[in-house]
């Protein structure tokens, strides 16, 4: 029986592929794409203000609500934060990625690679929590600033409108630091991958032709690292865009996209508006992915 079945499989390789694929594909299409579709449908419903019930009728009014100044502010604020985090992460990630790709011995490289990717898989919520401890008014950063007698500088930064707050953990600066920290590995790995593909001979050639290390860095290494930066930015940008844990735990009371989605679907029960809000990041990310593919970022993943 088993033999006959396997002979049958051998003669019909396409069928086998189809059989193998059917279960995972069915799951992803039905559950995942199906849910995304439900999300899309929901964004065209609306919430009846008086009854607090969702009315299942086609309308664009829910999307219309997104255009209110307060909601546009949420989009702007979130995208600005995502951009700032992406740039900062690229700056922090580069030296480490470059070191791992080009200077570490194979043994060290394995361990550095593990050190970089370990936080990627380890508890996200715990890593956010760590910053609540570190940035709190009586926490480590305040203690360290006090030790250096730099309180005036910290107070000055916290007094800045827009990014300041009563303490680091209650200010957008605190959120920014936590975001940079949380998504940093996503930036390091693609840059490292991109740089590993740069042959050493290319760097030697640059140096032999009289370029200073700074020139080599600027004209050879950075352009070749760029697809890696773009690949990394897909994650840092997208993840910042949709996060609600960090703004909910740190920062002030001004909303970010993720928080808006979270609170509208929660106590307010306004799933249509939450769904419409989610379309923002989805559209931005799809555009971003298409541009990134043009820039060759997927090869660096």
């Amino acid at each position, binding site marked *: 029986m*088993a*033999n006959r*079945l*396997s002979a049958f*499989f051998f003669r019909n*390789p396409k069928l086998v*592929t*189809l059989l*193998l694929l059917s*279960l*995972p594909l069915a*799951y*992803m299409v039905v559950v*995942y794409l199906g*849910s995304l579709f*439900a*999300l899309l*449908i*929901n964004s065209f419903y609306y919430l009846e203000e008086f009854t607090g019930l969702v009315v299942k009728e086609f309308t664009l009014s829910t999307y219309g609500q997104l255009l209110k100044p307060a909601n546009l502010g949420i989009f702007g604020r979130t995208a600005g934060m995502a951009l700032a985090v992406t740039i900062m992460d690229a700056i*922090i990630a*580069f*030296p*480490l990625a*470059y*070191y*791992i790709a080009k200077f570490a011995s194979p043994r060290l490289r*394995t361990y*550095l690679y*593990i*050190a970089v*990717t*370990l*936080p990627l*898989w380890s*508890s*996200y*919520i*715990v890593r956010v*929590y760590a910053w609540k*401890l570190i940035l*709190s008014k*009586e926490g*480590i950063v305040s*203690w360290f600033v006090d030790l250096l007698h730099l309180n005036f500088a910290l107070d000055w930064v916290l007094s800045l409108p827009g990014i300041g707050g009563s303490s680091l953990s209650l200010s957008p600066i605190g959120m920014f630091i936590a975001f940079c920290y949380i998504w*940093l*590995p996503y930036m*390091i790995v693609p840059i490292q991958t991109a740089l590993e593909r740069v042959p050493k001979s290319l760097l030697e050639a640059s*140096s032999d032709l009289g*370029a200073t290390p700074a020139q080599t860095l600027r004209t050879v290494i950075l352009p070749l690292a760029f697809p890696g930066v773009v690949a990394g930015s897909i994650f840092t940008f997208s*993840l910042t865009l949709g*996060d*609600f*844990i960090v703004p909910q*735990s740190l920062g002030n009371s001004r909303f970010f996209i993720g928080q808006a989605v*979270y609170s509208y*679907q929660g106590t307010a029960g306004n799933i249509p508006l939450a*769904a419409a809000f*989610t379309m923002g*990041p*989805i559209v931005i990310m799809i555009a971003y992915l298409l541009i990134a593919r043009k820039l060759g970022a997927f090869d660096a993943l």
Partner: protein
Amino acid sequence: MHSKPDKASWGLTLGAIGGLLFLHFPMFVIFLYSFTTDEATYSFPLPGFTTKWFGVAMGRQDLWDALMLSLQVASVATLAALVLGTLAAAAVYRSDFFGRDAISFLLVLPIALPGIVTGIALRSAIGSMEIPFSFWTIIIGHATFCVVVVYNNVLARFRRMSGTQIEASMDLGANSFQTFRYVVLPNIGTALLAGGMLAFALSFDEVIVTTFTAGQQSTLPIWIFSQLVRPRDRPVTNVVATIVILITFLPIFFAQKISAESSETEGGSK
């Protein structure tokens, strides 16, 4: 000659060390704080050291319930991811069918899009179909993003495995099932282990999608999140955070070591 290519400048080394410290220092802080005697604030330097909070945490039934739920969810989600991910990887590896890239894309989507998208999408689907929140609604959510982890690991291994082994096995008279059991499975064993452990860690830690699919149920990360928003049991939270780090550290470490080592042997054979 301006620089020796094999030696990093001290500026670069310093930048690299700085990056590493930034990545790992916060974990150390949590570890430290789980021993603090301070109950009301996060004051540093710690006023004193105690291990009593570990005992207090052990006595909390709500924490045990949350831990158990998280472990069960992670186990079942991992199992689902192992089956679905391996099947998808096998199908994609076997043949060059139309839409192969689309499948990879579909599988990556749940981790490439922000978690909140998956979360609210499942939430609206659950809402539309009026399914009550349960253990299984959490699983459904977790499986969507765990599949890709197994898929990536197994597919990478398939691509390194030489197809001639399978042909040899068939030529020597083994049927498909025997070939799978004695040739394919031993080859992909460690990839399954690595993918499975990562999927487990991913599911065990997940909070964003879970918030939308759990209803009133509380997994360990959800418990921590509620403490983040409204801190009530600060010292106990520190202990729980430390325990979560410890539980996921070993699986992740070994999974990473397996994939790092197998990609190195690949580099060596080239």
